[in-house]
Structures are given as structure tokens and as C-alpha cells.
């Protein structure tokens, strides 16, 4: 797919990276909305999506996969703690929003984690 291929323009590459992050944030939001109330919960699906996001960002920048374990681990557990705490806080602040608290927190957490991963894996400017 040419849309997600690396170019010589660093700004364009960063924009494409953020597009990947936003797409995954949307996927996280939809998954959270659909599976949060189920018996299995949304944790596993969101974890899979987070790992996939880290994989896609590393692949996009053609970075070595040596740091895949570290980045995936950090993203998954940071996402778990931030997501849980954030959802608890939002529920206290806006109890009437219900599931939307979880959806918003999931999206924001994904964008934050994705940005952190992007900063690590993107190539230095030549």
C-alpha cells in the first residue's frame, strides 16, 4: 500500500505515522464500545490491538524488531494501568457518561502510547 510506505519526506512520514495511530485509536474505541460489557471483557482485544499498533509502527519505519518486546510490553501494561485508572477517574468525574468514559480514555491512552512508540522508532533526520 503506497499510503503506508516510507518516503524521503520526514514530515510526511510523521504524518503517516500519526494516521496509523489515529486509525488504531479508532479501532480501540470501537472495540471498547462493543466488548466492554461482555463476559470476556475488552482487555484482551485491546491488548491485541495495542500489540498490532506497535508492530505496524515498527514495520512502517523499517526499524529492527529487537525492541518489539520492550515496546509492546510497555505499551500493553502502561495502557492497562493508564486505561484502568483513567476510566475510574472519568467515572467519578462524569458518572452519567457510562461506556463513553471507557471509550474516551481508551482512545486518548492509545494516542499517547502510539506517540511514545513513534518517537522511539522513527528514523533520525538525515
Amino acid at each position, binding site marked *: 500500500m503506497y499510503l503506508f510506505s516510507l518516503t524521503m519526506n520526514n514530515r510526511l512520514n510523521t504524518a503517516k505515522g500519526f494516521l496509523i495511530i489515529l486509525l488504531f485509536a479508532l479501532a480501540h474505541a470501537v472495540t471498547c464500545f462493543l466488548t466492554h460489557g461482555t463476559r470476556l471483557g475488552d482487555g484482551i482485544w485491546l491488548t491485541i490491538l495495542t500489540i498490532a499498533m506497535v508492530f505496524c509502527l515498527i514495520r512502517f519505519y523499517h*526499524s529492527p*524488531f529487537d525492541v518489539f*518486546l520492550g515496546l*509492546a510490553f510497555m505499551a*500493553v501494561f502502561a495502557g492497562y494501568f493508564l486505561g484502568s485508572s483513567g476510566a475510574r477517574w472519568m467515572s467519578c468525574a462524569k458518572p452519567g457518561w457510562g461506556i463513553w468514559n471507557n471509550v474516551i480514555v481508551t482512545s486518548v491512552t492509545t494516542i499517547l502510547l502510539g506517540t511514545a512508540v513513534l518517537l*522511539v522508532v522513527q528514523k533520525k533526520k538525515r
Partner: protein
Amino acid sequence: MDNPLEKKRNLVGFIEIFIIAAVVLLARILFEFDAPKVFSEGGVTFSAVLLKFLNNYSLVILAVLLDLILIYVITRNLSYGVAPVKRTLMEFGGIAIISIIIAFLQRIMMMNKPFALDVYMLMSLIVAFFINTICVTLADLICYNRWKNRQALDLAVKMRSQANYKYQLLKNQLNPHFLFNSLNVLDYLIHTDQNRASDYVKKMANVYRYLLAMDDRTTATLEEEMEFVKQYVDMMHERFASGFDVDIDVDRYYYHYKVVPCSVQTLIENAVKHNVVSEKNPLPISVSVKDDYLVVSNPLHPKIESSGKSGKGLDNINEQYRILFNADIIVEKGDADFTVRLPLFR
């Protein structure tokens, strides 16, 4: 056309990454579903055990130090991008060993049945594993960032060196002396033999065409380089007549091998520049292949006056071989002859 070996390598890489992803997912599932059961059985929470561990400063410092040593050892022995799964396994193994040591030390410090394998030991292990994984991951990311910066710097240096080499090549060939001499020869030929003059112009055009073609390439095939050398030598013969003789003995088998562009031409040019070239005593220059090296050799007929800087052209060629092939050229200066060996690569 897709290379089957490349496809197999990609598939193996994909499987490796899938395994790592599965391990992370498993850790996450265990942490959410099984770890709380362990802690509730012990009557404590994960946070409580974690805080107790972090309050033990000496143990935390020891854990961090061991983690840093682990990353240092792994980074020294295994570069990034070489074997991600092997690296992951080494990190996992190291974290497990360090966690066991820390968990045991914590129990010893608490003087609370240090070697009993009970639920409290399991809780300590889980917390130690968690903390060590975070430390090792952070240290690894910092090292990776430094490696990335070094790669970017090395690439910039290589690109600069290559640009400098190409600039020097172009400068040499567009050198007013070379052009001046070539035009003088051309002028002579126009008045004496128009056919030869026409051939000379074509050879000159081919020389410059090759230089321009190599502008956006880092290597040339031996066949291309030999063709270029023949054109160049023909041009030089118009100027020096039979003052030198280049004997090219390169089997067609080696034609697809790679060389640094203009490397052979530079060596021949150097030989003519630094040695006496006369019809009475022609300078023989031989170009052959031996033991996967392209060997350019000539006897020494040194000029009384040195003409220009010596060694710079060889340094430039050697620098290019180091960058492109991670290999050095071999220069042998004896009493009677001068030989340069250029490594050949497929």
C-alpha cells in the same frame, strides 16, 4: 521476481514476531486474571507487595544495577537488527534469573523462611519480574536510541564520503589538465586523421557518459569497469602512443562481480602519472584476477620530479571499499614493482 530464500526469511521473521507478540499477550492475560488470585490467596494486593519491595532501597538499587549489567552484556554481544528472538530470549532469561535472586534476597532480608516456596515467594517473584522487566525494557530502549543515533551518524558520514569520492572523480575527469590534453590530442587528430578524431571524440564521450552514469550508483560491474578502462586507455594511447601498455587478462566469469566505479581507471592513471612513460621503455601495466582480487600491477619507473600528490587516490578508493564492502584494498610497493589488489564481490 521474488526470491524464495527472501520469502522464507520473511516467513521465519514473521513467526518470530508472532511468538514475541503471543508472549506479551500471555503475560498480560496472566497479570489480569491469574496474578490477582495469587495475591488474594496471600491476603495482600499487588500494590502492597510492590510498595514493600520499592521501600527496600538497597534491593531496588541492586535490581537496577543487575538489569543494567544484563543490558550492557547483551548489547555488547548482540547488535540490534541481527537476531531479535535470540535477544528477546536472552533478556527474558536474564530477567528471570535476576528476579529469582532478588526475590530470594528479599525473603532473606525479611528473615522469613527464605527458601520456602509458598504463595509469598510467588508474589515476590511476580513483583520482582514486573519491576525488572520495566527496568530492562527502559534500559534497552535507551541503548536502542543511542544505537539509532549512531547509525544515523554513520550513514551521514558514509554518504558524505561517497559524495566526496564522486566529487573527486568528477573533479579529476573534468580537470582542466585532462580536458586540455584531450582537446590538444583531438586538435592534432582533426588535422591528421579525421577518422581517428571521430573515434577519439566517441571515446571521450563514452568516458564522460560512464562518469555521469556512475553518479547515482555506488558500484559497477567488472564488465562495465573494464569497458570504461579500455575507452580510457585508448584515449591515453593517442597521447602517449606506445609509451605504456595495458594488458587486461580478466575472465568473463568475473564480469558480474562488483567493483568501486573508476577504481581501476584511477590505478592506471596513477601508474602513468607517477612513472616514466616512453616509447623506448614502455611501461607495462597488467590487470588480472587472482584469488578473488583484481590485481593491477606495474614495474616502477619513477619520475625524477614527483607529479602531484600521491596516495590520495588510493585512500579514496580504500575508503569506498570499506564503506561498501567492509574490506580493504591491498597495496604492495616493492623495490621493483607496485601492485594494488582490489577485492571482488558478487
